[in-house]
Structure formats: structure tokens, C-alpha cells
């Protein structure tokens, strides 16, 4: 019983890290980034490539490289795709173009990844991070699970602090309410957008590396299933609310873990979809819809 709680918590921590970036880029920039799952995969793939082809680097360095690569991809998306789109057309056209562009970016990254991996799952080198497990009575927890939970905790507190308290975080909230007004008040919208895409993608990459170490495999389509879960989390929590996102992520992971343990494993996605539809009908803005998010 308690074992399932531990497993659910570490799954929820991965969900949290994944959903955080998706939620911030949506709240701040009004971008639904469907390439987020692919950036997550690129993080894992970069770590695999660095660890298996370069000389022995410490885990932290590999992690940092993967995060930088993902951050750079996010930055490139903002500069080469979102920014030119933002400057043309009416709002409906812009929103549509942006969503489709993220799908195309995702297709591009997946095609490149399949080129590298040969379309097959690749195994993470075991000496990158020595996974060991500790047992307390009946309970078993691995060191990577602890790392994942701690990292997710630090990341969510950091992001929550940034958005609530930091000056640039306040500017980001202003940006989400009214981009033009914020610009008139002297906020550098371009810089802030670029920085947001960089950080959101870097966090996705971080989550990708951690999950790949835990399941010791990397696969070109590994981000797609997470995208479905992240949608559910965002719909339950509402956009941009960090506390609600974390709670929803953990609750969803626990529910899934318990369904898999005590009921039928393949019914997990049916339940998740049911929850999505229910929330969309009853409370489409999510549980914690606050002023600075838009529905």
C-alpha cells in the first residue's frame, strides 16, 4: 500500500516537472506547445548520446548539457517560429498558426531523433547514474526516485516563487494579461518570452533525463503519452497556478498507480479521459482559476 504511494509520488514528480513548463508557456505567452513532449524526449536523447559517445562525464554535467540543448531548442522556437507569427495576421490565425507550428516542430524533432536512434528504443548507459535501491521493511525506494521527488519539489517552489515574487515574474503575469499594455509600461516582452521558452524547455529536458535514467531507456515517441497526462493536469488545475498543478499531478499519478495496482491497468487512460471530459463540462477553467490566466 505505502509502496504504491511512493511509486505514485515519484511518477507525480515527473508529471509535475513536465506540466510546469507547459503551463508557464501557455499562461505567459498564450502558446500551447505541442512540441513540449518532444523536447522532453530530446533531453533524454541528448543525455544518452553524451553519456554513450563522449568520455566519462559526471551525471550533473550530462544533465546540464541536456538542459542547455533543450533550452536552446525552446529559444529557437520562440525566435524562429513564434515571434514571426506573432507579428502577422489576426488573432485567430495567429493562435492556429502557432499550434500547428509546434506540431510541425515536434514532427521535425521526432524525425531527427528516429534518424539517430534508428527508430528503436535505446538503452541508457548504466554507469551514468548508479541506480541503487534502499529497503525499509517491505518498502523499496531507489535513489533516482528520491532525486526525482527532490528536484520536482525544488523546481516547483522555485517557479512559484519566481511568478509570485520576482520582478520578472510579475512582468510575465502582466504580459499574460495584456501584452500590448505590458509593452507600453516598459516590459521587454521579447526578452521575457525568449527567457520563458528557454526555461520551460530546459525543465522539460531535465524531466526527460530523470525519467530516462529511471526506466533506463530512450525512445523517440516517449513524450506523447506524457502530453496526454499533462493535458489532464492542466485541465484539472487551471493554467498557470503552480500549487494546483503540483497537486493535480500528484493526485493523477496516485490514482493511476492505484488503478494499475488494484483494478485493470489498461483502464488508466479511460479514467484519465473521463476526468478530462468531466472537468471540461463542469469546471473548464480548472480548480484554481485565478485572475492572471485566461481560459
Amino acid at each position, binding site marked *: 500500500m505505502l509502496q504504491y504511494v511512493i511509486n505514485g509520488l515519484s511518477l507525480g514528480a515527473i508529471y509535475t516537472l513536465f506540466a510546469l513548463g507547459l503551463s508557464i508557456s*501557455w499562461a505567459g505567452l*498564450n502558446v*500551447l506547445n*505541442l512540441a513540449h513532449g518532444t523536447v522532453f524526449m530530446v533531453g533524454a536523447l541528448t543525455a544518452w548520446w553524451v553519456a554513450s559517445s563522449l568520455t566519462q562525464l559526471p551525471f550533473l554535467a550530462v544533465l546540464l548539457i541536456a538542459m542547455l540543448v533543450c533550452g536552446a531548442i525552446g529559444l529557437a522556437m520562440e525566435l*524562429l*517560429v513564434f515571434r*514571426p*507569427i506573432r507579428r*502577422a*495576421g*489576426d488573432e*485567430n*490565425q495567429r*493562435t*492556429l*498558426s502557432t*499550434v*500547428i*507550428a509546434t*506540431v*510541425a*516542430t*515536434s*514532427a*521535425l524533432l*521526432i*524525425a*531527427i531523433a*528516429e*534518424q539517430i536512434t534508428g527508430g528503436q528504443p535505446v538503452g541508457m548507459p548504466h554507469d551514468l547514474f548508479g541506480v541503487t535501491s534502499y529497503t525499509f521493511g517491505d518498502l523499496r525506494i531507489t535513489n533516482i526516485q528520491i532525486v526525482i521527488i527532490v528536484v520536482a519539489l525544488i523546481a516547483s517552489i522555485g517557479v512559484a516563487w519566481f511568478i509570485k515574487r520576482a520582478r520578472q515574474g510579475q512582468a510575465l503575469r502582466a504580459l499574460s494579461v495584456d501584452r500590448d499594455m505590458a509593452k507600453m509600461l516598459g516590459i521587454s516582452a521579447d526578452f521575457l518570452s525568449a527567457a520563458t521558452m528557454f526555461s520551460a524547455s530546459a525543465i522539460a529536458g531535465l524531466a526527460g533525463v530523470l525519467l530516462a535514467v529511471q526506466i533506463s531507456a530512450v525512445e523517440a*515517441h516517449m513524450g*506523447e*503519452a506524457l*502530453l*496526454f497526462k499533462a*493535458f*489532464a493536469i*492542466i*485541465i484539472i488545475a487551471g493554467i498557470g497556478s503552480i500549487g494546483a498543478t503540483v497537486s493535480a499531478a500528484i493526485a493523477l499519478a496516485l490514482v493511476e498507480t492505484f488503478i494499475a495496482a488494484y483494478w485493470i491497468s*489498461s483502464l488508466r*487512460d*479511460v479514467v*484519465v*479521459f473521463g476526468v*478530462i*471530459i468531466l472537468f*471540461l*463540462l463542469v469546471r*473548464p477553467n480548472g480548480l484554481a482559476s485565478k485572475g492572471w490566466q485566461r*481560459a
Partner: protein
Amino acid sequence: MAARMSDWLISNAPLLRNVSVLALLGYSVQLALRSGVMSFATIGFFALGGYLSANLLQADWNWVVVLFVVLIFGTLVALVISPVLRRLRHLYLAMATLAFTLFVQSLALTWRPFTGGAEGMYGVPRVLPQAGMLVIVLIVVFAVWYTQRGAQGRATAALRYDELLSASLGVNVGRQEIIAFAASGAVGALAGFVRVSTAGVFGPEDINFTMVVDALTVVVLGGTILWLGPLVGAIVVATLPLFLADAGHWNLILQAVIVLIVVVYQPGGIVGMVERLIGGARRRLKSDPKKEIARMETR
């Protein structure tokens, strides 16, 4: 002449099948889009239509009956999820409809008795004649063209530009959106029927993320609004691999890059681009404001 024509049709059957399926998928996406419903549910409907047809055809149903059952089923599923439409806008709608597609994909892998799991369905009777397939596509193209004209077409266009304004001008916004989504569901499911009844196989690789990208590519390349768009887009996407044959694995990468460039720099797509060029030339020759307005309205 006629003999050569039919030879060409037979020898290019796989290509024609791809064009037909892609065109139907494109129209399914476009039918929703042109009413302002940002829907990613098309591949979900495609999967439902495909698996349903596969099961019914394997049970030796007549294909005409299957065709209508699939159309009705696609419409019904769309109607069942349509209450969600009224509550959601833009990005939320895109996310909810994509969640539907992801859910159907996951269902296809786990509900083995109906879908064949990871292997998919195979050995389905290939009963749809080529002429029947082409007639289906032509009927859909005609229906899309027909509904873009006149009062109906103007109501749809108004909806796309400003929902609030069109509501105040007497357009029943909710009904229009539900009709558009139901049509999108029916055509999406129809594409699944056409695919199964001509190819004989249907599996998870037919409904994966690549297919979502292909359907969007068709619409983006052709143009998101113009009635001819998806057909042109489907022909381009289906023949692209022939031109890029030397590129091998770079095929998919190139396709994605082309879509990105078109979305960012040519939002009207190929048809929009051509029309703008022709329109520009025409305007320079003879400018008639009344005709200009009429032209804008019929788009």
C-alpha cells in the same frame, strides 16, 4: 485514350488511395476550422471509422451499408462530445480535441478484441472499388464547396472572424459549431472507411502522431480556409515522397521543415498564394470594388 486512363488509374492505385484518404482527413480538419472550431480530433474519428469498418467488413457486411453506418457513427460520437465545444475556446479546444485523439490511440492499443492491439487489423476484404473511392472524395469536395457559398458560407466566415459579432447579427453560433464539428467527425470517420476498404489493413501506425502531422500538413499546405485547399494539399503531400525519393529518411524531416516555413511565412497555403498572385494581377488590370467584396464573401 480511355484504356490508357484506366491503366494509369490501376497502376497508381496506392497513390490515389493516399491522395483520397489525405484529402478526406484534410477536409475533416478544415470543416471544423472554417467555423472557428480548432479541432485536433480528426485522427481520433479516423481511427474509430477505420476500426469499425474493419470489424463490420470482416463480418461480411455490404460495403454500402458499412459506409453509412460509419458516417452515422462518426456524426454521433462528434455530437456526444460536442457539449464540450460550447464551454471552450481556441487553445483549450485544441487541447481537449487532441486529448480525444490521444485517448483513442491508447484505446486502440489496449482494446484488443476490437482493434487487434499492436498488430492491428489485417485481411479485411478490399471491397471499395476505385471509382467508388473517387466518387466519395468528389462528393465531399462538392459538399464543402457548396456550403461555402451563399448565406451559409457567409455565416461560417463571420463565425471565424468574430463570434460575438456574428451572434449579435443573428447567427446561431452554438448550432453552427456543432454542425461543423459533426461534419468534421463524419468525414474523418469516412476517411477511415476508405482507408480500410481499399488497403485491407488498419493498425496503430495508421493513427499515430505522424498521421496527425500529415492531416495538418494537408490543410496548411493547401490553405486553411479555401475549399480547394485540402485536395491540393493532399496531392502535394502524397506525391512529395516521389520527388524526395532520393532523400530517403530525410523525407520526414524535409516535410516538417516545409510545413514550418509555410505556417510561419505563407499562412494562406499554396492555394492562397496562387490566388493572391492572380488576384493581384487582376486588380492591377481592372479594379472593381463590388467584385472585390463579392470575392471576399465567397471565400
